[in-house]
């Protein structure tokens, strides 16, 4: 079907049956395909999870809930989890938003550092980032504690507390917020803030009364993703919490899945608890985002984002950023680099410096699957990010813009995979594709399906948030001028969505390099990915080789993301 014909039909029949105009246009086909794909991807693991939760060999059961929530320590478990999740969400929100605001809206110095500061914590695998922090801030061996000892006495900071956990998790998550908020700030008309300033409001008032309310959809999305992510986080609670007996939900999910047979019922019951929270969250986020036109800052009126002059605050902010960078990015990265040059970790000393070598990197080069794994991870990362963002752009249009009944379901389904444990996803996919006539099992495509499923929720949040900022009037004018739906989408919406889509793309690219829990069950010889290699080195006790691998990953992804950013400049992620 040519793209011109629907327009003709539309013009002719619009007054009579306005809605009929897009039947059977490409629009409907695309919408059905997208809705079908999301429904399918979400329902397969959800069905598997529900079945495993409610049915055992003898029929319907609620035993899983008893095991999951019947623990005598459930009170402190929930308390710790919520405290940890809320704390990390708040920390990452404050850090991510401030960095994004300063970066996009002000003339703050060291903008290049920002970029590194905002992405690197995301790239470093969780286990390495957490252990780096043990080496930095453990009361027994922490380098920071050693440095502070003359002034504050021994063990000034303790990473093995709930505050330490919040600190590490919050910083590790802040890049998601940063990317989300950068996109939101870029799409915001600064003239609104300027008018407020002209009317005599202080900078703080402007931020509180104008900036925050306008970016509320993005903030709500960030809180939602952060909260679920930290409820699910594993490395930080396992490595920092257990030492002093701070147990959270995920420690629990880990234990019920570890025993044989894996207690899918209990794991499912715990995941369903998260699902209820997530469904409520998505509903709230849509209520907030739907509140009329109030967030639509990308309108028919042109604007050019212009950085706000910080004046006398410029050097102060500059110094703050350098400090932040040194503490949260440079310090763990230097520890990682330092460890990667040693034979085993030891506190810096002359002996340690003398024993330094590149042996770990040489060993890395000698690994038979290193090249294959890097290639596969690159393919999967790029393909997953591109597919997810393409599909979610359309899904976001359906939820935010269309009037199709049931559109909210798409949003809910797209969010479901966030709460499904990776192992359950792996089991569900191998179950389905071992029986599928299409030979997907044992190929790299089963990993692609797993990754697209796992990262769909993030793609959806990035797209929905951007879509909520774009005024409907732009689409309406395009359609009045005779553009078809597809033309409008491609020529008007996509370019305007680009900052958000690119941010989501970068995020998914980076995190897909780390996916392990479903990959480990689904990969096949020849389809190894980097996270499998990391896991193998870890299992093998090769911690220093692992550190070297971490350094290589950071370098690879920084280059990739820089390229994406530079290309992104052309489609509007950067204004200069």
């Amino acid at each position, binding site marked *: 079907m040519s793209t011109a014909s629907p327009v003709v039909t539309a013009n002719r029949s619009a007054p009579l049956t306005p809605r009929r105009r897009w039947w059977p246009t490409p629009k409907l086909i695309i919408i059905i395909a997208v809705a079908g794909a999301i429904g399918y991807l979400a329902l397969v693991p959800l069905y598997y999870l529900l079945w495993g939760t409610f049915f055992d060999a003898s029929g319907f059961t609620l035993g899983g809930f008893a095991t999951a929530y019947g623990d005598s320590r459930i009170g402190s478990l929930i308390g710790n989890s919520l405290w940890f999740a809320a704390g990390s969400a708040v920390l990452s929100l404050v850090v991510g938003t401030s960095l994004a605001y300063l970066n996009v809206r002000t003339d703050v110095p060291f903008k290049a550092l920002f970029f590194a500061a905002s992405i690197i914590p995301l790239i470093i695998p969780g286990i390495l980032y957490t252990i780096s922090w043990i080496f930095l801030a453990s009361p027994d061996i922490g380098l920071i504690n050693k440095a502070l000892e003359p002034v504050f006495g021994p063990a000034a900071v303790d990473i093995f507390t709930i505050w330490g956990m919040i600190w590490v998790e919050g910083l590790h998550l802040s890049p998601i917020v940063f990317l989300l908020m950068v996109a939101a700030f870029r799409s915001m008309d600064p003239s609104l803030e300027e008018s407020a300033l002209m009317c005599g409001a202080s900078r703080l008032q402007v931020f509180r009364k104008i900036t925050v309310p306008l970016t509320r959809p993005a903030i709500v999305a960030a809180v939602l993703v952060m909260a679920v992510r930290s409820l699910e986080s594993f490395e930080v609670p396992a490595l920092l919490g257990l030492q002093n007996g701070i147990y959270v939900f995920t420690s629990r999910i880990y234990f019920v899945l570890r025993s044989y047979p894996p207690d899918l019922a209990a794991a499912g019951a715990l995941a369903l608890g998260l699902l209820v929270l997530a469904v409520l969250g998505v509903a709230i986020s849509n209520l907030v985002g739907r509140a009329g036109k109030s967030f639509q800052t990308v309108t028919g009126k042109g604007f050019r984002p212009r950085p706000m002059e910080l004046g006398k605050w410029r050097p102060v902010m500059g110094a703050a950023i350098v400090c932040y960078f040194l503490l949260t990015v440079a310090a763990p990265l230097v520890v990682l680099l330092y460890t990667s040059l040693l034979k085993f970790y030891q506190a810096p000393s002359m002996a340690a410096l003398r024993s330094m070598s590149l042996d770990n990197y040489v060993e890395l080069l000698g690994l038979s699957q290193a090249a294959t794994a890097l290639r596969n991870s690159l393919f999967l990362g790029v393909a997953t990010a591109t597919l997810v963002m393409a599909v979610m752009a359309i899904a976001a249009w359906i939820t935010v813009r269309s009037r199709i*009944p*049931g559109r909210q379901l798409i949003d809910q389904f797209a969010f479901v995979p966030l709460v499904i444990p990776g192992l359950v996803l792996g089991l569900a996919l191998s179950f389905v594709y071992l029986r599928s006539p299409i030979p997907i099992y044992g190929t790299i495509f089963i990993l692609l399906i797993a990754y697209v499923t796992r990262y769909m929720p993030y793609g959806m949040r990035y797209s929905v948030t951007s879509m909520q900022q774009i005024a409907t009037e732009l689409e309406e004018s395009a359609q009045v001028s005779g553009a078809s739906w597809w033309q409008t989408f491609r020529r008007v919406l996509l370019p305007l969505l680009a900052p958000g889509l690119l941010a989501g793309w970068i995020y998914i690219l980076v995190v897909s390099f780390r996916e392990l829990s479903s990959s480990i069950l689904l990969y*096949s*010889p020849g389809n190894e990915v980097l996270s499998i290699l990391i896991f*193998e080195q870890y299992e093998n006790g090769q911690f220093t080789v692992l550190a070297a691998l971490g350094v290589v990953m950071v370098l690879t992804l920084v280059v990739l993301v820089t390229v994406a950013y530079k290309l992104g400049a052309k489609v509007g992620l950067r204004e200069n």
Partner: protein
Amino acid sequence: MRHPSILPAVTAMVTALVLTACGASPTATGTTDTNAKDAAAAKAQAVYDRINGLTGEERHKTLVELAEKEGKLSIYTSNTDMDSLVEGFENTYKIDVSVYRGNSESVLQRVLQEQQANYFGNDFIDTNAGELNIMNKEGFFYPYQGELREAVRKEGKAEGWTASRFNAFVVGWNTTKVKPGEEPKTIEDLADPKWKGQVSMEVGDVDWFAGLYTYFLQQGKSEAEVRDLFTRIAANSKIAKGHTTQGELLSAGQFGITVSSYSHTVDKAADKGAPVSWHPASGGPVQPIIVRPNGVALMKTATSPAAAMLFIDWELTEGQKILAEAFRVGSIPGATDPFADLTVVPVPEQELLANPKKWDDLYAQILSAGQEVQ
């Protein structure tokens, strides 16, 4: 107004499709088409029986001939030293080996999933005792026989599978934090309040715990005494997750003593120069040493059965040397037996298989009780 109902309809359709595709229960064992499985098993069994019946040079020659004719081998494993084993094997024989490596849980889940779907992905398996016992109970294995199996340590001649190496849980320490002469001599020493905050226990070492617990009961201690002992050790302990992390933190001095390190983790770190050891300056190491076999098995449905058998022969001969170089304890005692004159206690595998929940819960209880004392 046709389309408003389209979306829910599509969703419903997709749901229906998924439900029918998944059949009644995703967790039930596949009942249809067992013919494929029987046919595959019959073919492999003929080869297995033929080789199991031969001995000496004749066995080896026939096996190599058959295996090289098959030309390929698919291995599922959680063995961290598999790379060097496969390298040696591929250099010796004209056989292409493909290796899937995961943790022992994912190896088990993968085999369970594949066998239920009549997908015969692997010929050979090399993983931990617990998982091997479960798969043996499911009837996935075919017995491996011969002189090499006879030579294996008695703890390693399991039903359905054969041990190729042992994980030994030892008490290790950081030699700068625990000075020579001050090392703990017995497990009971670790409960001494002087080690407060110096000890580390691993959160998942239920099998080590069950082994030691049962051993103490057999030594005449009462349940209450054993629990009290472990609780007091836990009260001295920092809990770690994962032996690698724990080992690296022991080298770094985050704690002084680990109660259940793998001997190879400590030996490997010491070889790199880390200040760690499990052998005191004088006298023997802390005993008993709990050992857990890791083993190999032949898949009943193997498509390359001869290659699988040849690999077992390889792992139990040349492979033993490669494992020893990686500080592993092989299953066939060589000239230097690392366990000679030591009290060695195997993990009570059958008990753990029968009552997994009981031991998981008991260990978790002891750890948290100990932490509450702190």
